[in-house]
């Protein structure tokens, strides 16, 4: 192999079917050493199945799974060297926190003192040392999940797999644990794959996101790239929010929406006459004074004003022919200057470098 350090995990054409249903249609990707990768997608997209195939808990119908260059496709889970945390925690209820964490160490003939030391070390890491002698049922959900994490990390695996680890927790705990887990992963430098359906979780935690849909990988990239440069309409709608306008291409970089002709980002593969969908994120829509002197300008009426805390969402409807519906986020600090209320008319601008064009009708992934 040319690269002296092979990727921590490499999947080549992994496919899976459950009877007549095809769950994965040939997925290939790599995860670098020390990287935090999220499999993101709606339920039923195949992300959990893919994780279970990596873990060896589910046999694939085709494809190869490599770990650090070693083909593990046919190895049982116990010979793959990873730690796993499930959504349900799967803590052993009859064992104390300490015994749970020690569970994977006890079969390794380490000697009691070394096992004890390692358990303490891990419980310190997740700040649960005082709860050592408690049983899982006596801990909160977030604490239980941290025990599960410590248990998975105890035998020092080279890979950490997280299957929707935060989904069963309340919103507040989830947020705190998100940061804690990410910091822990950084500190240990352990290669991590996390499955989630929560785009916010993926955006804040991952080094790279694998967006999946219907058993295929839609896009792989850093969170910022996925957000700003979605490669498909599906990704655009699943990650963040986006206004979508059905349009017809007229010439490179220009498309018509009703009576309006709008300039958009250069989009390869778009030819004149083609049906396209234009997309712009709510926070990229400019209104009021900020829209003056910009390209792609139109006038719209404020249909509703929705206070959402840090920002306010305006529902707008363009005036005249081809009345486009838009949503627009205005920061709380800018709202006062704008002086909008329901019914008033405001100038709106859709900056051309924020307006993306997709060669798909908007209803495709509804």
């Amino acid at each position, binding site marked *: 192999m040319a690269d002296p350090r092979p990727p921590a995990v490499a999947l080549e*054409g992994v*496919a*899976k*079917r459950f009877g007549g249903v*095809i769950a*994965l*249609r*040939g997925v290939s990707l790599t995860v670098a050493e020390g990287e935090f990768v999220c499999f993101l997608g709606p339920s039923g997209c195949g992300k959990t199945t893919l994780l279970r195939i990596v*873990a*060896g*808990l589910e*046999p*694939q*119908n*085709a*494809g190869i799974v490599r770990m650090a260059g070693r083909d593990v*496709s*046919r*190895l*049982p*889970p*116990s*010979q*793959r060297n*990873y*730690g*796993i945390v*499930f959504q*349900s*925690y*799967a803590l*052993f*209820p*009859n*064992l104390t926190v300490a015994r749970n964490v020690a*569970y*994977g160490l*006890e*079969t*390794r003939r380490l000697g009691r003192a070394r096992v004890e030391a390692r358990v303490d070390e891990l419980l310190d890491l997740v700040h649960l040392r005082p709860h050592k002698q408690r*049983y*899982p*049922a*006596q801990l909160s959900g977030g604490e239980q999940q941290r025990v599960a994490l410590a*248990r*998975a990390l*105890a*035998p020092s*695996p080279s890979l950490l*797999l997280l299957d929707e680890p935060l989904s069963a927790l309340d919103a507040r705990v989830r947020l705190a644990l998100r940061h804690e887990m990410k910091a822990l992963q950084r500190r240990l430098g352990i290669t991590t794959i996390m499955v989630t359906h929560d785009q916010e979780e993926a955006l804040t935690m991952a080094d790279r996101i694998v967006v999946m849909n*219907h058993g*295929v*990988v*839609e*896009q792989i990239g850093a969170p910022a790239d996925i957000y700003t440069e979605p*490669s*498909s309409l599906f990704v655009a709608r699943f990650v963040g929010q986006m206004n979508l306008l059905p349009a017809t291409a007229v010439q490179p970089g220009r498309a018509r929406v009703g009576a309006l002709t709008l300039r958009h980002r250069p989009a390869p593969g778009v030819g004149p006459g083609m049906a396209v969908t234009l997309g712009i994120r709510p926070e990229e829509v400019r209104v009021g004074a900020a829209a003056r002197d910009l390209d792609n300008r139109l006038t719209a009426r404020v249909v509703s004003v929705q206070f959402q805390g840090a920002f306010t969402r305006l529902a707008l409807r363009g005036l005249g022919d081809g009345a486009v519906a838009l949503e627009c986020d205005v920061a709380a600090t800018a709202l006062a200057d704008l002086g909008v209320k329901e019914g008033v008319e405001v100038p709106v601008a859709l900056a051309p470098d924020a307006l993306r064009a997709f060669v798909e009708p908007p209803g495709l992934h509804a």
Partner: protein
Amino acid sequence: MSVAVAVPERVVRRRVDAERVLRGALLGLFALFLWVFLAWPMAQIVWRSLLDNRGAFIGLGNYVRYVSTPAIGVSITNSLAVASVAMAVTVALAFVYAYALARARIPGRGLFRLVAMLPIFAPSLVSAIAFVYAFGNNGLVTRQTGFNVGIYGAKGIVLAEVFYCFPHAMLILMAALAAADARLYDAAAALGASRVKTFMTVTLPGVKYGLMSACFVVFTLVITDFGVPKVVGGKFSVMATEIYNQVIGQQNFTMGATVSVVLLIPAALACVIDRIVQRRQYALVSSSARPLAPGQGRLTNALLLGYCALLAAAILGIYAVIVGASLVTRWPYNFAPTLKHYRFDTIGGYTPLLNSMGVAALTAVVGTVITFAGAYLVEKSRTAAAGVLYMLALLPVAVPGMVLGLAYIFVFNAAGSVLNRLYGTLAILVISNLIHYFTVPFLTATTSLKQMDAEFENVSASLGVPFYRTFWRVTVPIALPSIVGISMYFFLNAMVTLSAVVFLVAPGTELAAVAVLLLDDAGESAQATAMSVLIIGIGLLARLVYWALLRGVTRRTQAWTTATQEPTSAA
């Protein structure tokens, strides 16, 4: 980005490792056990029913003879008639009793429940013997009143079976009545429905599956029971006694097999329907249901209390007759107290009782290990083969004891077979009990396994811990309440069972329940009652031990659990 690929039907095969080999081997052992002791004997009995007594194949000839010979064919209609009547009476009586305990505010509910459970601790024929003592030609009541009710025949069978089946029906109906949703009653009251209307539109529909289940269980118990009709049936022949007569009385094994196969049909049918009905019952109870607080009008409470007292007195009366008859010199002529019946001089002392206790203890230990480990292996390996084993494990509940016993004669008393060595040993008695009572413990174990997190095994595998270690350190401790319940179920049933083992006991391996039958047959009914008293006493003692064990287990596991799983069905 979507890539068109053909996904093959077959999965990539795992490399074989020691754990998989062990798992496969254990599953294979379990399959072998069910094959040798269940599937093969059942196949044998069907095959034998198609042969004549010299071993020549005659197709359905035996069946034609069975239904066309009035002397033996009448056992079919007799069985169905007795089972239907006993079913109707038992369920009606048990429903009111269960309703009183679950829905009314009457004092001493715990005591009433306990008394109603008593018949479970005795072999079925004990109730028949008691009825003979009370209403027989020389019965106490008959002599006192001078009125002979004619206990021998259908009347006596129905009476004794009602007594014997009462606790089974009551337990099912209690569970169904206890699972009520108070919100429905609040709604009915808010809509101004009368008590009668509420009962008809809320209470009855809520327990209809419980009622159906109770009906099927009682029907199956009665139609497969051998002890009661043997003692009190007289000339009234039912299928279970007909099998015995054909095999023991006339050495006509093929006709015995034929009657057995016919008896399988209603028993199996009732079991299948019962399983379907039970599944519906569970679906009926919503998790958000609010439990109903017991309470009735004053008059209703008083009436229900009177009813329960009457029935409890009847049950206690029957028991009093048994205990009394065993302690007096000669019922009903000489009431001088004596312990001489407890010497069992005609059957050589206490060997049968000790045998029974040994067999019951072994059945409890071995049965618990096999059912729990078997349920674990089947539940955790989701393969087609495991599915077949699951279905096979459900089969025994539909096999009447007489049929199983006869099947074992065919398999284990065949000349030149290696399995022949088991014949006449205590081992064959243990095995027949294991199979006879296999299904309920197997399902109890499966249920408690299903309640555990399915990822336990996956977590262990990822940590490099072999499955058997996790089984021992996690699965077994969590399931301990169920395991204790399973072993008690095996023990109590093995103590009182008669039907399968009546064909399998041999000199030296006599059992207590069979001794009761033989003593009664030989006219030594006082000794029969003495033996019954001892069987009941041991059963009650075992139940006490069970309670103590369960309390100990609960206390030990209190730290890590709030709810303990009670076994779904244990005597």
